[in-house]
């Protein structure tokens, strides 16, 4: 029997990363196929290929038994394939209705149907179905993250498609919003629409999927039929046997130790519940929460990138004032940012220049940097962190994701770190390099450095953290320790549920 949509032996590589290696996928009409895997397993890449956003290096795609060439987004749309991206792609300067219909506006000879309100009427219909409670005239820039995500979904629903690809559509939705979305997906299934569904929330997948395809490190890892879809079965296929080896964190935190960093009653927004927490020496504190819950903002406030409206920061009991990144760095509080290519590195500069960027004052004399200054320091760092680079003068943009992340870390280790905040430290990094990053974090913790690790990867949070803080709507929803740390308890807090305990 031939499938409705079939992808055969799809390969795609990016510099330093084989994202997909001979991956197969097939799905029938009216089937809901969940695609799961760890971060960097290749799910999004595969979906982007099916949606015409990127082109595969090799492989074949068949639709209704016919070979098709999905070279561009309009081509995918013509074939009836709609893709809801993981990241928000909205024109924030336009209103909700304009975004929903972008590219396929109701029109009469090139003129928008604004005067007879057709655009707004149609938008309202879709918005009501989704439970998006705002005016279609509202500017997208004024919406919350959850609402923006619903606009993104509404956009896909606004046109005729046979295949709907959803890449983590619920990442920043509340439980109610997610429930409503599942209702819509089930209704689509009734209409014989094929749905490809990506999510990290395995509970959702148990509830909704007809079949599960699991990817691992760019390879097919296995498939589960409806009756086999169980949380443990998915995790087993996602992480494989190696999991235990990778996450070896010795819990050596002294619970009685004085807090190393204490953040008290901090606010970076007006009308925000003040945030208070502390990190003990040698402790890895995981921070979980939905996209847009304010984790990155909190990290930016502590490191002086964002003004602190109220609150105090204590380092070893001493009140320090942080009003600029320079203040935080002087205190030894460093940030390894979420988007390393944008905020962590100077991409066209060399490995050496990047590593020394924050320490030039110590190396230079009277502002002049000696020609070979810092070479030995950089050499040490590269060895200590096993940074794989052809030379110290290699442009950092050409390194693999894992090595780039190590360069960011090396930059801070040249100074004396006391607290390091990692924001999504292993995003887009292959499994091998992930393990190395975790080992480095462990190493740092052993030296008594306090670590705050922001992550959307629940497996990572579960296995690396000594303690977990959960954020929801820009406030601390709860704190979990020891046996209380579980995927369920974290998700409950992250989506605004009551405290688990």
């Amino acid at each position, binding site marked *: 029997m031939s499938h409705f949509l079939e992808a055969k032996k799809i390969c795609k590589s990016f510099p330093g990363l084989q994202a997909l290696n001979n991956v197969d996928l097939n799905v029938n009409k009216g089937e809901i196929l969940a695609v799961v895997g760890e971060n960097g397993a290749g799910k999004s890449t595969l979906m982007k290929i099916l949606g015409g956003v990127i082109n595969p290096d090799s492989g074949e795609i068949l639709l209704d038994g016919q070979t098709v060439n999905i070279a561009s987004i309009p081509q995918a749309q013509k074939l009836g394939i709609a893709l809801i991206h993981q990241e928000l792609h909205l*024109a924030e*300067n336009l209103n909700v209705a304009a975004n929903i219909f*972008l590219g*396929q*506006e109701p029109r009469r000879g090139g003129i928008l149907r604004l005067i007879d309100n057709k655009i707004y009427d149609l938008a309202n219909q879709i918005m009501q179905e989704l439970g998006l409670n705002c005016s279609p005239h509202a500017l997208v820039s004024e919406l919350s993250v959850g609402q923006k995500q619903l606009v993104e979904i509404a*956009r896909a629903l606004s046109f005729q498609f046979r295949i709907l690809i959803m890449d983590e559509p619920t990442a920043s939705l509340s439980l109610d919003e997610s429930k409503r979305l599942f209702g819509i997906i089930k209704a689509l299934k009734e209409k014989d629409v094929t749905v490809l569904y990506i999510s990290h929330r395995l509970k959702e997948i148990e509830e909704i999927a007809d079949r599960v395809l699991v990817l691992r490190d760019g390879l097919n890892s296995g498939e589960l039929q409806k009756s086999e879809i169980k949380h443990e079965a998915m995790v087993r296929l996602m992480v494989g046997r190696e999991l235990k080896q990778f996450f070896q964190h010795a819990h050596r935190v002294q619970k009685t130790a004085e807090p190393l960093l204490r953040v008290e009653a901090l606010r970076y927004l007006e009308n925000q519940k003040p945030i208070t927490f502390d990190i003990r020496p040698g402790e890895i504190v995981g921070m979980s929460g939905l996209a847009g819950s304010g984790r990155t903002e909190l990290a930016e406030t502590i490191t002086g990138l964002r003004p602190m409206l109220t609150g105090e920061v204590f380092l070893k009991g001493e009140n320090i004032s942080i009003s600029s990144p320079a203040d935080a760095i002087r205190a030894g509080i460093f940030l390894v940012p979420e988007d390393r290519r944008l905020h962590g590195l100077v991409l066209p500069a060399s490995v050496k220049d990047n590593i020394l960027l924050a320490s030039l004052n110590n190396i230079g004399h009277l502002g002049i940097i000696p020609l070979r200054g810092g070479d030995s320091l950089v050499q040490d760092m590269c060895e200590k962190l096993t940074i794989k680079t052809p030379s110290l003068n290699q442009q950092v943009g050409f390194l693999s994701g894992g090595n780039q992340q190590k360069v960011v870390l090396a930059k801070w280790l040249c100074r004396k770190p006391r607290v390091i905040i990692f924001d999504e430290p292993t995003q887009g990094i292959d499994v091998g390099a992930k393990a190395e990053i975790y080992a480095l974090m462990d190493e740092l913790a052993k030296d008594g450095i306090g670590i705050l690790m922001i992550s959307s990867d629940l497996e990572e949070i579960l296995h690396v953290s000594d303690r977990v803080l959960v954020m929801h709507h820009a406030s601390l929803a709860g704190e979990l320790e020891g046996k209380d740390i579980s995927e369920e308890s974290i998700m409950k807090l992250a989506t605004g549920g009551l405290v688990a305990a």
Partner: protein
Amino acid sequence: MKKLTGLIVFLVVLYIALAIAVPSQGFALNNYNLAERIGQYGVISLGAALVIITGGIDLSIGSVVVLSATACAILLTDKSFGLDPMLALPLVLGGGAVIGLIHGLLITKMNLPPFMVTLCGLFIYRGVARTISGNMSKGIGNQCIELRHFLYEGDIFGLPRFLVIYIILAIIAAIFLHFSVYGRYLYAIGGNEKAAKYSGIATDKYKILSYVLCSTLAAFFGILFLMKNNAVTPSSDGFFLELYAIAGAVLGGCSLRGGEGTVIGITIGTAIMWILPNLTNMWGVPSELEFIVIGSALLLGAIMDEKLRPAAKNA
């Protein structure tokens, strides 16, 4: 909306000040000249705005104006051409369109920064104009009286012809930008090019279109310039025109980040740009201070704009 209200208030205040400053017997004439100037320069502000809305910039406007005026004068009056205006004008406008097309292609297909491409254009077209004119003034003398009458001389219902032309263009531009699918795409590209691309919009095509329209409008301004001044001197005319055009658009609410701006705003911005020097002139402020006044007004506008920006962006 807040922005627009602020601009209107500012414009009204300036105009009242002007009414007080100008002696009553000269007021009508001053108004007429002012309206003509606003109409004329509004043409290039519209062009600059189209590009700015997509998040681009065009620095070559002044040079395109001078080249077009020079080419127009030569085509109309040179012995070896002596073309009929019905032929010469489309040629000049078409030339402008081709220049815009080249800009657009270089920016989209070769991925060059708009600033760089149009900066090079600024030098090149000025040089071409000086070369084809033999580095001399080119005039139309007493020829083309009909054309001049049609485009420039005399009023229509008491309004200068340049203003009438501008009003027609502005209405077309308003329909294009605010009510057509294509205008919507320009805003979407300026707001988030990736979002536009992911919606299946041929973003390159629309960016190219904006540069074509901008250069065509600059060429049209060149024709108007020639009609009004009767001659053009490529070595000295038309300097800073692109900056006036950009300043008018930005003062009128176009954000250099792209994605923002309205035709009514651009019109008010251009009006403010030209009332200001008129007013300072009437107040007897030495003309060497004029640029300081314009620059300060722009700076003030930019500061106000930042203050009025909704704080939601930082949330």
